[in-house]
């Protein structure tokens, strides 16, 4: 399934090359990323797991354009999007769905959805028509369009946020533990929803998480990041065929892959834990 991308026009390749990120708060060097290399094919669904504070979010922020790297380059297709000295700018070609959810609470669902197209200069009526079309296509009830996010369930909020990203036709979707705050039942529903969206749109997805079940269930490839300084330690190809649904969770192959991911992450988590203990002592 890694070859999903070759079916489309080949947009949305992320290349992370020899990336290093050093934070320097008050002269104390914190090496968040080191010799980090990663290639994500167009139309590939890649999950990244790793212990807390390992630099996953640092990498995602660098790809999103929120903060730069101190060494190396990150490319989106042919464009350099992060490199030392580069003036970075986030853009609608790579949209982030945030951990806490970032739907604008002061805008209705429809106004949230058309926000991207409208600020990019599109005619409002066209944007509304497009938003409605996409709501239908991606199964979001149109009766919600005049509601404020505060009145939606947390699962539905994530659904709206994903559609708000997709309406801009981004090359990649960057998801930063978007379902972390959901209860496990809503979380399961959102996993299946995201799989459905992936089948329909075939966008490149880079998704970071702590949840191994989530990782194996959704991904074409699971990357394991080491504890700080973060680098890619291992990758697990998930050869479970798509389209997938919840029944996959009960299969032997799923259990086996999850076990492998667990072992790889556990080693790093232990290291992080011990390092943390020493720091405290």
């Amino acid at each position, binding site marked *: 399934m890694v070859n999903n991308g070759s079916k489309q026009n080949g947009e949305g390749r992320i290349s992370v090359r020899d990336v290093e990120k050093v934070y320097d708060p008050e002269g104390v060097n914190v090496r968040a990323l080191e010799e980090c290399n990663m290639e994500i094919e167009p139309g590939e669904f890649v999950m990244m797991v790793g212990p807390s504070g390992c630099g996953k979010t640092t990498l995602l922020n660098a790809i*999103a*354009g*929120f903060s730069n790297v101190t060494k190396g380059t990150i490319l989106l297709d042919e464009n350099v999007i992060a490199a030392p000295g580069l003036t970075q*700018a*986030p*853009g*609608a070609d*790579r*949209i*982030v769905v*945030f951990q*806490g959810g*970032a739907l*604008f*609470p*002061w*805008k209705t669902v429809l106004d949230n959805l058309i*926000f*991207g197209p409208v*600020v*990019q200069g599109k005619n409002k009526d066209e944007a509304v028509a497009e938003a409605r079309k996409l709501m239908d296509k991606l*199964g*979001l*009830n149109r*009766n*919600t369009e005049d509601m*404020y*996010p*505060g*009145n939606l*369930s947390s*699962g*539905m909020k994530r*659904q709206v946020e994903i559609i*708000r*990203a997709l309406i*801009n036709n981004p090359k990649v979707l960057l998801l930063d533990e978007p379902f972390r705050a959901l209860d496990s039942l809503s979380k399961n*529903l959102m996993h*299946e*929803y995201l799989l*459905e969206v992936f089948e329909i749109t075939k966008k490149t997805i880079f998704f970071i998480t702590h949840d191994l079940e989530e990782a194996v269930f959704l991904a074409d490839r699971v990357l394991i990041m080491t504890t700080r300084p973060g680098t890619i330690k291992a990758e697990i190809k998930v050869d479970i065929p798509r389209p997938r649904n919840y029944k996959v969770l009960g299969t032997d192959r799923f259990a086996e892959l999850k076990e492998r991911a667990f072992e790889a992450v556990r080693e790093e988590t232990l290291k992080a834990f011990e390092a943390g203990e020493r720091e405290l002592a």
Partner: protein
Amino acid sequence: MKNQTNTIPEKINESDFVFERPSFLSKIFTLKMVLNTASVLSLFVIWGLLVNFGIYRFVLIPGPAEVLEWGIEWMGSKGFWMDASLSTLRVLGGFTFACLIAIPTGLMIGWNKIFSDLTFPTLEILRPIPGIAYIPIAILFFPWEEASVAFICFVGAFFPILLNTITGVRLIDRDYFRAAQCLGSRPRHIFWHIVVPGALPSISTGAALGMGIAWMASVAGEMISGKWGLGYRIWEAYTLIRYPLIVDGMIVIGLLGLGSSTLIRFITLRLIPWRKAITESLDESITK
């Protein structure tokens, strides 16, 4: 996820529900209304008792009956309407100017680091100076008496509105800014679509506070300058030994203050419709 539609029914048939129309009496005599009324009445009862039995120096204070009698007479006179309307106009004038200057300034300070570094220290020096301290300068400076009292109200209202606006902007979740950037916003979009609406709830808190302080400042201002106004009337009643009128003036200020804060709440609820759901659920949890 198409089956998620069941949270919001496609169509609601009226026959699905049987509404029990609440009777007129049960609408008026809600527990809330009864308790609210009792609260106000008890203020008058306690005051009346304290005066009636002459507890401590309460013999010197006019009682409710006397105050009512004087009040009715005062309210029938032309002077009352002059006092009340002039005071209200001064307060509203000062308050409006305070909003017009404090809200944009606060938005800029909260949002723009350079603007903040440029203005904030100066404002922090001015902030501790109370409105009353400006009275002599205001009398010297303004050629018009009305303007000097309105200016005192302006000073009182300005800082609560400014500080709440700044806080309002600074408390906006960073992810909203980032999401807006991701979606292709330029700085002006961020200002109008994130900074302004994100700070609105806090601005409305500041406005309500500022309105209260503007009323306080107006009374102080009027006691010193002016021939009309509620503050002036209270002070005059004291010097002319017409004590019940002092209390009447106080009650009218209280009522006008209540009226203006209700007005602000009414306006801001309409400006912040997304807050309605939150406020309603809060109200419910308090009542229960």
